[in-house]
């Protein structure tokens, strides 16, 4: 697994530089103003209440004089109070502005990533899809994107905040008192190192918790989906025992994690309190010695609190950034997968609508392994003719269709449509000219009508119903309560295999392409219906080049040409009458069929 670097992930921000720069500006403003608040307290304590004007910075002094001198300010202390509120509120406002900028930028980045992934997955090769697992891809597109977003919005800003806090506070403290600065910060490196070290160690325990949780989920899932098996063998007690064990393990490991975390909190609390104590008592001692004023002590006590708590979380955040790197690495793997190469230009005089002559010449193809799925395959299909392709599983029938649709590209030989070489034609244009119903129909979670209209968005209801009629599924659809508006999928009805195939066929027919490809489209449809559909098809469309991949002889009987395939080659060719009288594969199958017929009668 490729892990992304911080640089890779930061490149995502590049287009949103302005937003991040603004966010940083507001962060600095907000932190800076935040640090002024304790100074107001300090000046009030020293200058106004203590009457110690030497300790007041020149700007503040001028401000006080402008307001009417020290005595006026003492009599109007509301001014200090209001000033404090205003400065704090401004600091808060800038904090909001920072979050506003990062939130919008990050959500935009996430949105673009999602769109990019979605589109990319539609344009990578089919080969890629056959190799990858859906679940894994989905995880990359959802939770990995989320992890990256959290990194960009929360983690980077938290790290930035800690750094800016330290950068701003050190000179400020330094100006007030050098020794006390040291007393305020000497444990900070230890705090950071401890928390980084701690979370690096604990990572494994987090992982163990995840594994235990996964095991528990599996047991529950398997029990619930297999509840019939459990009951049928009366294994309830066995299941409960199995579950209890996993439940116990999960409980124990989770408790172990919490227990370890409790050490983190109490140790860091310990470090922080010692640090604060050092300031309090060291500072007091210095006040006693007269080297600093009470106001300075007050300011330092407040500053220590402001710096320590955010820094304490750093270890956790730094440990979590690793997750974002892994996640982004996984996303990049998808995005870096090359797109299908495509010629965007069409050959000259490529017609709006093809006639439908198809020719395969010595085509060979293999899927990665050394076995040829198509081996020097040749055939010629006349426009308007119907060709059936028959042969055992794995003989290359579906490969043929995939090559014709340019879902895969042929490696040797040539395929032409109306004389145009296939790999010179843009993939989408070829697919526009070929109406295809695939072996396993995929229906989207929408209404029946929307599913049929997928191929022709602008089709009217009449055309949809016509297509459904031809595919012999109109009656089945109208039998649903909501007819064509019936939802398919999780929230709606589940169609039977045959119904799904016929809805998918209607979708193909609605498109009215010059070439029709039916890849085992009738496997779940009974023979009678199949015959009816084929008959209507011929009546309605007449001369359409039609390729039918099938396992049924009934389909072959009415076609102009039958190709019997085996191991990627054509082993027999001809029409039904010829083939049934020639010794060979086709005749064997024909004989089996006849025997069956005999047995029934």
């Amino acid at each position: 697994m490729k892990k992304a670097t911080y640089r890779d992930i930061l490149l995502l921000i590049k287009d949103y530089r302005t937003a991040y720069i603004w966010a940083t500006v507001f962060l600095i403003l907000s932190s800076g103003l935040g640090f002024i608040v304790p100074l107001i307290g300090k000046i009030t304590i020293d200058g106004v209440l203590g009457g110690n004007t030497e300790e007041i910075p020149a700007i503040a002094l001028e401000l006080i004089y402008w307001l009417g001198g020290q005595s006026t300010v003492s009599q109007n202390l509301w001014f200090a109070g209001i000033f404090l509120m205003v400065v704090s509120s401004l600091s808060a406002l800038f904090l909001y502005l920072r979050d506003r900028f990062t939130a919008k930028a990050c959500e935009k980045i996430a949105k673009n990533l999602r769109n990019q992934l979605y589109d990319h997955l539609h344009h990578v090769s089919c080969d890629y899809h056959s190799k990858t697992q859906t679940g894994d891809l989905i995880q990359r597109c959802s939770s990995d994107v989320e992890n990256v977003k959290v990194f960009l919005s929360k983690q980077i800003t938290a790290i930035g905040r800690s750094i800016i806090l330290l950068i701003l506070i050190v000179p400020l403290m330094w100006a007030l008192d050098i020794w006390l600065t040291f007393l305020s910060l000497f444990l900070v490196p230890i705090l950071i190192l401890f928390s980084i070290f701690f979370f690096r160690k604990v990572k494994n325990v987090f992982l163990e918790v995840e594994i235990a949780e996964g095991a528990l989920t599996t047991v529950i899932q398997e029990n619930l989906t297999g509840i019939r098996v459990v009951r049928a063998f009366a294994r309830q007690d066995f299941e409960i025992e199995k579950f209890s064990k996993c439940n116990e393990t999960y409980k124990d490991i989770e408790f172990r994690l919490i227990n370890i975390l409790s050490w983190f909190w109490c140790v860091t609390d310990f470090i922080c309190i010692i640090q604060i104590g050092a300031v309090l008592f060291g500072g007091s001692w210095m006040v006693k010695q007269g080297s600093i004023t009470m106001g300075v002590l007050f300011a330092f006590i407040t500053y220590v609190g402001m710096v320590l708590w955010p820094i304490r979380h750093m270890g956790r955040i730094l440990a979590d950034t690793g997750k974002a790197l892994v996640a982004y690495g996984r996303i990049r793997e998808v995005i870096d997968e090359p797109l299908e190469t495509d010629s965007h230009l069409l050959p000259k005089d490529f017609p709006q609508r093809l006639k439908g002559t198809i020719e395969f010449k010595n085509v060979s193809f293999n899927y990665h392994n050394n076995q040829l799925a198509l081996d020097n395959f040749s055939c010629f299909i006349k426009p308007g003719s119907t060709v059936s392709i028959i042969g055992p599983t794995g003989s290359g029938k579906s490969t043929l269709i995939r090559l014709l649709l340019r879902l895969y590209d042929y490696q040797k030989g040539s395929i032409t449509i109306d004389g145009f070489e296939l790999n010179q034609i843009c993939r989408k244009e070829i697919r526009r000219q070929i109406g295809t119903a695939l072996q396993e129909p995929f229906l989207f979670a929408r209404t029946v009508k929307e599913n049929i209209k997928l191929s022709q968005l602008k089709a009217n209801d009449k055309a949809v119903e016509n297509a459904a009629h031809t595919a012999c599924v109109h009656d089945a659809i109208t039998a649903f309560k909501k007819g064509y508006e019936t939802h398919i999928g999780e929230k709606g009805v589940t169609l039977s295999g045959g119904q799904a195939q016929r809805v998918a066929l209607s979708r193909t027919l609605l498109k009215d392409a010059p070439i029709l490809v039916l890849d085992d489209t009738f496997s779940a449809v009974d023979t009678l219906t199949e015959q009816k559909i084929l008959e209507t098809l011929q009546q309605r469309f007449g001369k359409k080049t039609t390729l039918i991949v099938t396992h049924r002889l009934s389909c072959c009987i009415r076609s102009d040409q039958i190709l019997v395939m085996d191991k990627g080659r054509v082993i027999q060719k001809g029409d039904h009458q010829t083939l049934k009288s020639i010794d060979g594969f086709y005749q064997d199958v024909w004989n089996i069929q006849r025997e069956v017929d005999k047995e029934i009668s």
Partner: protein
Amino acid sequence: MNQLLDGNKSKKQLEPAIWRELFTRYILPYQKLFLFLLFVAGLVAASEAGFTLVTRHIFDVLTSQHQEADLWIPGFIYLALMIMLVIGVRGFIYLAGKISTRMMYDIRNDMFVHLQKLSFSFYDKHPVGWLMARMTSDCMRLANILAWGALDLFWGIPFLMGIVIVLFVLNWQLALIVLTVVPVLLVISLYFKRIILKSARKVRKTNSRITAAFNEGINGVYTSKVLVREKQNLKEFTVMTKQMFDVSVKNELQIAVYLPLILAIGSVATGLSLWFGGVKVLAGILTLGTMVAFIKYSSSFFDPVLEIARVLTELQTAQASAERILGLINTSPEIHDSKAVTENLDSESPSEVIKNICFKTVSFSYGKDEKVLDQFNLNVEAGQTIALVGATGGGKSTIVNLLCRFYEPTSGEILINGIDYRKRSLIWLQSNLGIVLQTPHLFSGNIIDNIRYGNLNATEKEVTEASNKACAHNFINRMPDGYHTEIGEGGINLSTGQKQLISLARAMLADPQIFIMDEATSAVDTNTEHLIQNGLENILNERICFIIAHRLSTIRSADLILLISDGSIMESGTHSQLIARSGRYYSLYQKQFAFDNEKKLKQTSYKTAG
């Protein structure tokens, strides 16, 4: 029940009854730990409040005694407070962790045990995904709120109360002024937490829609390519991601407003302390230390207020979870042993031989819908094999479900050896069953454990014998680790046919008196199926067997074939009798042939192909 499913809408009002039940069920057992947790929480709150008092004291002695100020006593107190806090924090998290994990354990166990008792009618209404969510996320949410929420609440409230008391003791007039901020903070927090929760829910919903779209996009990629839908798909998808952008930005902006707002309001308290405190210091009514204490307290009390607000809002979502969980645990199983049966459980003879099963005018309907089975009668003797054929939805599976007592007849009765099976225990009937289903369910683990599921005490030899009879032995032996091969979750490393054979072996190992095969060998090739058939014949002697099948070779050898349609028997008899009648069975048989033939064609061609 519907309310149980729609429980997502959290109600505005907190319902004490629910929390009372949860409390007695899950917290009371840990009474002592819980009280201890409260004590430690108080300790932590007290020591945290104490630190500021030490600061106050130091400021006071420094102003009044200058060089003579004694720092040793406050130093020791500081150290003592520190030790108290560190120990407290450790104990606090330890205890809350202990209670929460145990509570989660208890809740999950209760649910799981109860799920094992609930009837199939319950499972029909609640999809597995829904149940999984109850067992995982609801459970987690509830335990979190019960332990961690309580922890925050029991730390926050004493801490806040401690601050209030200290402030009033120090100077009640100033306390009154400063504390005016607290109710404002609380109200604003509650408001924001609520709207943030709402928008977060919207974000989650949109997110799951996007995930679903990805799922569809990836699974349907071939279709999309073939239909040249890429552009249109993306267009529709961007509408969704745009919406996601809108709702999540809204959610994040709400969060972005909330915290600064709280900070700003908190600063009002600090400002007021400085203003009125300063005035009083100048007037000599207040010491400097007390003013500093006021300023420090005023910046620390929004922490507990935030926590309290958070817990209070989470309580509402947790209530929805609690409702669903309690709803599940309190659902009583529709099918259960009657009192009389439970009392006489010992007198039941487990080895009773089943000689006869009789369906007597059995009618059945799922819910209030139309009857699936209508006045159904059937008498089966030991040694008989009954084949059920007919269209889907005709009632075949219902007959089997009733026989297994997964459901009970709505009217009529089913007698086993002349006794209504409701007068027997569920466990007796079900331990005499052997079921093989079309979609075989295997558990993750190795093959031998899966077969042993049929008989937990079976020896290795018995397992091999059973799988031999099920024709599974050969392919299992060819696996890398033989019988000890891990099959992966749900058996992903096996083909459906192989899974069917393993589940058949499992049933054979159980050696049941009633054998039920529901399309059990649909994915097994004809030759193997033939071998299995022969093996079964010996086993089925003296036993009762029900077969639901589409394959003719399986049906043909049955002693009695029932053609079931619309909930009753349309035709019955042996194969030759039914063929001779040329009725519906005959035409079904013919139709079926087309499919069988197709399968045969695929296989023969395989052989010719070599």
